[in-house]
């Protein structure tokens, strides 16, 4: 028996009046997609590339679009000297972000576990309220914060900033960690309980190790949010507790913005984030998917 050749599935549905075959159409769509992606990438990368170049230019080259120039490290040494003293800001930013994460993750984990595993009175209402705090524009509540902090003496202190950042990251951390804990099968916890664990032992021996990638992911997100936080730090600090993003404002001088210094400071802000992302990208992906796939 002879076998008829299988019609090409792409050819099969082809309308003879149309000039393009299905395969050609697919290629065109693919090309358009690639072009759009390249444009988007270009738009996003150009400012960063510009900053990287500017940081190594001297103040004369900075306004030119020269790609080839004599690179200098002078900007990086200048920003750490008087009157800019970026080093202090770096210490402030690090301390604030670090302690924000240190307090946020354990508290958020406990809250998330309760939301995930216990039936609480008004559970949905509480969860929605926690999320709703995220929708309040910071500008609206910044003045009450200022007055309150002034009265209790938290103005221009790192502790004050840590508290504010905690309020900012907590809803996010609770929701994110809850997603990870929801993903841990209840069977596993129940098995541990029957095997002889108390609730605390279940959390320590089973839940925490299993949720670890998620906690790490949430912690890094919180660190990035606190590290980049600008508005509250701008209003609530003026000298002692100034953080890096606010430090950037120092580079406004009478002769205009000092773009070469600004860029150098910008890189100092960005580099730790890049390094962090590189170091933990394995857990990052693991954590992201663990929350996504229940």
């Amino acid at each position, binding site marked *: 028996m002879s076998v008829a050749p299988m019609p090409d599935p792409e050819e099969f549905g082809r309308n003879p009046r149309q000039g393009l075959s299905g395969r050609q159409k697919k290629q065109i769509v693919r090309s358009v997609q690639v072009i759009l992606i390249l444009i988007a990438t270009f738009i996003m990368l150009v400012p960063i590339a510009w900053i990287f170049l500017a940081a190594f230019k001297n103040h004369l080259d900075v306004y030119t679009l020269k790609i080839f120039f004599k690179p200098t490290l002078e900007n990086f040494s200048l920003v750490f000297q008087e009157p800019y003293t970026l080093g202090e800001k770096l210490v402030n930013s690090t301390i604030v972000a670090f302690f924000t994460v240190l307090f946020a993750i354990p508290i958020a984990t406990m809250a998330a576990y309760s939301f995930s595993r216990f039936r609480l009175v008004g559970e949905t209402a509480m969860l929605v309220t926690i999320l709703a705090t995220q929708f309040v524009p910071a500008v609206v509540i910044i003045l009450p914060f200022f007055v309150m902090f002034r009265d209790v003496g938290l103005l221009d202190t790192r502790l004050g900033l840590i508290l504010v950042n905690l309020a900012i990251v907590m809803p996010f951390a609770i929701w994110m960690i809850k997603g990870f804990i929801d993903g841990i*099968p209840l*069977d*596993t916890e*129940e*098995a541990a*309980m*029957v095997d002889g664990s108390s609730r605390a032992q279940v959390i320590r*021996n089973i839940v925490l190790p*299993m949720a670890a990638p998620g906690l790490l992911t949430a912690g890094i997100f919180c660190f990035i949010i606190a590290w980049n936080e600008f508005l509250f730090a701008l209003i609530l600090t003026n000298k002692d507790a100034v953080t890096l993003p606010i430090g950037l404002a120092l580079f406004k001088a009478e002769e205009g913005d000092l773009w070469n210094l600004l860029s150098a400071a910008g890189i100092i802000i960005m580099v730790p984030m890049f390094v962090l992302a590189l170091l933990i990208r394995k857990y990052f992906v693991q954590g992201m998917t663990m929350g996504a796939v229940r």
Partner: protein
Amino acid sequence: MAEVILKNLTKRWGDFIGVDDQSLSIADREFLVLLGPSGCGKTTTMRMIAGLEEPTSGEIWIGDRKVNDDLPKDRDVAMVFQNYGLYPHMTIFDNIAYPLKVRGTPKSEIAPRVEKAAAQVELSQFLDRKPKALSGGQRQRVALARAIVRTPKVFLMDEPLSNLDAKLRVTMRAELKHLSRELKITTVYVTHDQIEAMTLADRVAVMKNGVIQQLGTPDEIYNDPANLFVAGFIGSPAMNLINGSIQNGHFVTTGGTRLVPVEAADRASVVLGVRADDMRVSEAGEGDIDVRIYAFENTGEATLLTVQWGKQRVIAKGDRHLRKDQDDVVSISLNHDHLYLFDPDSGNRIAG
């Protein structure tokens, strides 16, 4: 080692009744199977014994201790879960060792006991691996090893074989049976699979809608079903249930065919139960009644004949060498010693 006693145990969620005022006494070293369709309350009953679910009312006793208010960890039971409930971040060794570690067993004792338990379920060469690296059957063995590494008062097993493929299930069933006879520990086993119930149990409790329908040995529930539900649930193929009436000491089908003599008083409506095994298939005209074949199936070990009997279809088991075709006419005879009569309204068995 202990007996388990449930006294008037009830579990309700709002209006929904999971377990309805059930009492049950499980003897020391007994292997009791809770059998029933999904949602019948069997798993809820087990979870209440484990302490994972709080009873709405009633008492649970393990040994000479009322455990209602005890946490799961204080009840001294071991449980095997349907989805295994392994600890994915621990090695197999640590999984099996966990119940010992968390109960403060001296370190020197842990390793030999884990190795012994692992050997009993043939897992010795896998102790360094993580659960992810094991097959479904091996994971179930880990769960089993974790249960037997201690000597708990009671084993609880919640459909432990239902996630395995058919072939593995048969192997594991035999291993479970062997192990349970070896360990001699009171066991409560939940399943919806009647073969597991028949093969493993000392006694079976058949449940439906939160109520135990019948409690008895596998023999009793198979050969002496208490009601229509048990009769229809136990046995494969299911018992044939034929509607009819009793007239002058004979069962008469709704179609008016006078079939077999029965020892029961006359009544207008009755259900006759007869198993496929208890029907003899012969050539047309040789048996009690001639019927037309609706479907002929050869399973290899036997033949199954679905026959049209008036408005009803009935399944009979034939010799494995029998060859017939759809629409052939055969004759069927009932084994008069193994007929069951039920009241169609209450579902209860009628003596006779």
